[in-house]
């Protein structure tokens, strides 16, 4: 008995020592730093999977809520090479007609030799439609239901489409094709990591993309976990109306083609708010085929010239000089300038566009005949420092801050700068030797049409986040001239167009405006008269302007003059667009608010 007791005691002691050792070892493993690190690294590898979860990209709408950019589902169809190797011909026979792909391409893809390390799967297309996937499923089902004879099943490897797999993916889609593509930009869905390019897509890339998180997903079935619900990226609503945009785009395309111009741009804005109603350029691309952008656009012909391409605007710039002259008190509308045909400065003569001498001219005459000599003289009367201060005040020496990517501006050379000479002042006064973008010009001219108040241009009406919306509020960014000056200049330019019987005049709506034909300096040659930028800026109705439109044709070959190509284009576009902007003509207003509805042929409401 004692012997058994002693054996039991020995067993208890031995077990105690064993369990004590195990306990101490556990304690060591629980507290030792390297053991903990090892455990964690093993745990990271085998217990968790890290998933990158991205939000769906936000949509872009026009001002009426029509979709301009959305997301569509497509399917990537792939072949599992391990099982496709043996029957490439069979797979190609079925897939080629469904996917509209070349039979040989599919066959070769299917027969690529399987290699566990190098070649496991071969994608055929990234853009299969839902209908195509349904057809593949039908064929798969049909093949599965085949009844093979016992002989066939024993002697022949079963040919089927089990190696064909597909994965859904979301890609960017632009339902209106090239409509407003210069404004929207594009998202390269074939290479999303490259990020969006140009326009709204790039400017608001971060907001449209929404959230992107990395989530550690536990592989342990005892740890419940969910994949977080990701809110969609914010949706952006533009100020442009697709109908208006379409009319303007059709017109600019026709003008560019007919005049064999390099490019064309038209912007329409609301001077009271700075809202951009339309911004059309040509050429454009369909952003669904964004890879063509490198073929279409060059350094001299940018994706959206309206904001990306500063150029010498020519005589259109005279409206700024005239406004500065009137506002500074240097000139008055009735001031007379005697045009001798040249304006000499530092031994250099400045000529008019026609090299003619027009004799004594009031300021309206100067604008009507677009006299370079007269504007040079006005700039001299204003004075160098004051002239450039006015240009700064009009915002021409800085980007406008419109919500579009890659906005460019060309810094103005001023006295003291390397490239400035005394000849710069007169040449700048009529828009040569100074470069501005159409968006800078229309912003400056908005001040003339809005009682001297300059509004910040904006093309985004609102941004809809998942939990709130941000609506863009009109913002005044300065008052370069007084309300009185704005009114005087508008009246002068309206009269000047009427006296000139300009092609820009609209039937039944009185407008103010100015044409411009800017010469282009070619490298190594200097200014070439036959290569021009033909522009026009106009606003109306003259007594209470509701719109400003800017037209620019780059290097038109058929007709180089702004007064003959850009001015009539302004009239044509605004006549068509005006009803869609909910703006009555002057005659319609008179019919509504006065007892006498003027006759359609009345001179008072007929400006042609």
């Amino acid at each position, binding site marked *: 008995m004692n012997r058994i007791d002693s054996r039991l005691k020995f067993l208890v002691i031995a077990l105690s020592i064993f369990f004590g050792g195990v306990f101490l070892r556990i304690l060591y493993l629980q507290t030792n730093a390297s053991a903990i690190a090892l455990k964690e690294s093993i745990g990271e590898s085998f217990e968790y999977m890290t998933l990158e*979860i991205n939000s*769906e990209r936000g*949509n872009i*709408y026009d*001002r*009426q*809520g*029509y*979709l*301009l950019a*959305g*997301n*569509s*589902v497509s399917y990537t169809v792939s072949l599992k090479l391990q099982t496709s190797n043996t029957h490439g011909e069979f797979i190609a026979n079925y897939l080629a007609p469904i996917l509209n792909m070349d039979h040989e391409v599919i066959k070769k893809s299917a027969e690529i030799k399987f290699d566990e390390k190098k070649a496991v799967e071969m994608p055929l297309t990234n853009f299969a439609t*839902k209908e195509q996937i349904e057809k593949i499923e039908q064929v798969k089902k049909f093949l599965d239901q085949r009844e093979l004879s016992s002989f066939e099943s024993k002697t022949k490897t079963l040919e089927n489409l089990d190696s064909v797999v597909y994965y*859904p993916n*979301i890609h960017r*889609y632009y*339902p*209106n*094709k090239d*409509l407003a593509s210069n404004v929207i930009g594009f998202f390269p869905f074939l290479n999303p990591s490259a990020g969006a390019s140009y326009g709204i897509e790039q400017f608001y890339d971060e907001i449209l993309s929404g959230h992107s*998180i990395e*989530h550690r997903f*536990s592989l342990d*079935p*005892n*740890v*419940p*976990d*969910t*994949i*977080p*619900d*990701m*809110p*969609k990226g914010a*949706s952006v*609503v533009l100020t442009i109306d*697709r*109908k208006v945009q*379409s009319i303007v785009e059709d017109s600019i395309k026709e003008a560019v083609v007919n005049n064999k111009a390099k490019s064309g741009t038209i912007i329409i804005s609301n001077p009271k708010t700075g809202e951009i109603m339309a911004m059309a350029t040509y050429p454009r691309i369909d952003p669904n085929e964004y890879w063509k952008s490198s073929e279409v656009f060059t350094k001299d012909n940018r994706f959206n010239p309206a904001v990306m391409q500063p150029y010498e605007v020519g005589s259109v710039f005279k409206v700024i000089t005239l406004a500065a002259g009137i506002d500074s008190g240097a000139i008055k509308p009735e001031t007379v300038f005697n045009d001798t045909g040249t304006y000499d400065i530092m031994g250099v003569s400045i000529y008019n566009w026609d090299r003619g001498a027009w004799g004594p001219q009031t300021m309206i005459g100067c604008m009507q005949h677009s006299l370079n000599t007269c504007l040079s003289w006005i700039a001299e009367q204003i004075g160098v420092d004051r002239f450039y201060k006015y240009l700064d005040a009009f915002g021409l020496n800085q980007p406008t801050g419109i919500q579009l990517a890659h906005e460019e501006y060309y810094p103005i050379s001023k006295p003291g700068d390397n490239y400035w000479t005394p000849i710069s002042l007169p040449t700048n006064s009529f828009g040569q030797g100074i470069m501005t973008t159409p968006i800078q010009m229309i912003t400056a001219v908005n001040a003339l049409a809005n009682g001297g108040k300059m509004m910040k241009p904006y093309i985004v*009406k*609102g941004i*809809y986040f*998942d*939990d709130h919306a941000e609506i863009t509020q009109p913002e005044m960014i300065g008052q370069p001239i007084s309300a009185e000056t704005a009114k005087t200049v508008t009246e002068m330019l309206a009269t000047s167009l009427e006296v000139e019987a300009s092609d820009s005049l609209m*039937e*039944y709506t009185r407008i103010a405006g100015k044409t411009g034909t800017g010469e282009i300096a070619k490298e190594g040659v200097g200014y070439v008269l036959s290569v021009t930028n033909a522009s026009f800026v106009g606003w109306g109705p003259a007594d209470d302007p509701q719109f400003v439109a800017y037209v620019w044709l780059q290097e038109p070959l058929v007709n180089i003059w702004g007064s003959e190509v850009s001015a009539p284009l302004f009239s044509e576009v605004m*006549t*068509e667009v*005006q*009803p869609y902007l*909910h703006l009555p*003509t002057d*005659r*319609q*207003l008179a019919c*509504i608010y006065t007892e006498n509805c003027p006759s*359609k042929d009345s001179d008072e409401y007929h400006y042609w």
Partner: protein
Amino acid sequence: MKTSQSAYRLAPWRKQIQNILNVLIALIFIASITMIYLYCSAQMTKMKLEIQVLHDERSSLTRMIADNLTQEGQITSFFEMEKRARQAGYIPIDMYDEEVYTYLPVAGFQDESFSSLNGVSQINSIPVSIVKPEYTESLQRWLKENVSIKKSGDQ
């Protein structure tokens, strides 16, 4: 020296039954714990699978909604609408002929801006897991965190 000794001892068969019962109680206890553990594990695994299935369904629905929205955009795109309008016999208004259209101010008329956006679906959620942390952490970790918080709170 006087020693005392029990007058009775448990009968061996009783002692054996007692031992057997003790072992059985221990086994039943272990089996119960194991059963509860396995049951909970099975429930959690089932739940996790359900979560994954639901997540797949949600992803599929999200894709479908996006696709349907874009298809609607495609059907109502400017070019499609224009084509259909022409097919239906409508012709563009000649804006140069002022007699074919008129300007009529209507009291109370509001611009249609944004009206189509009312239906734009917005997910009102934040990108975090909806499972409470209490369900995903160990007892040891819970004690560690809460005890340390209480301690620091006491100070």
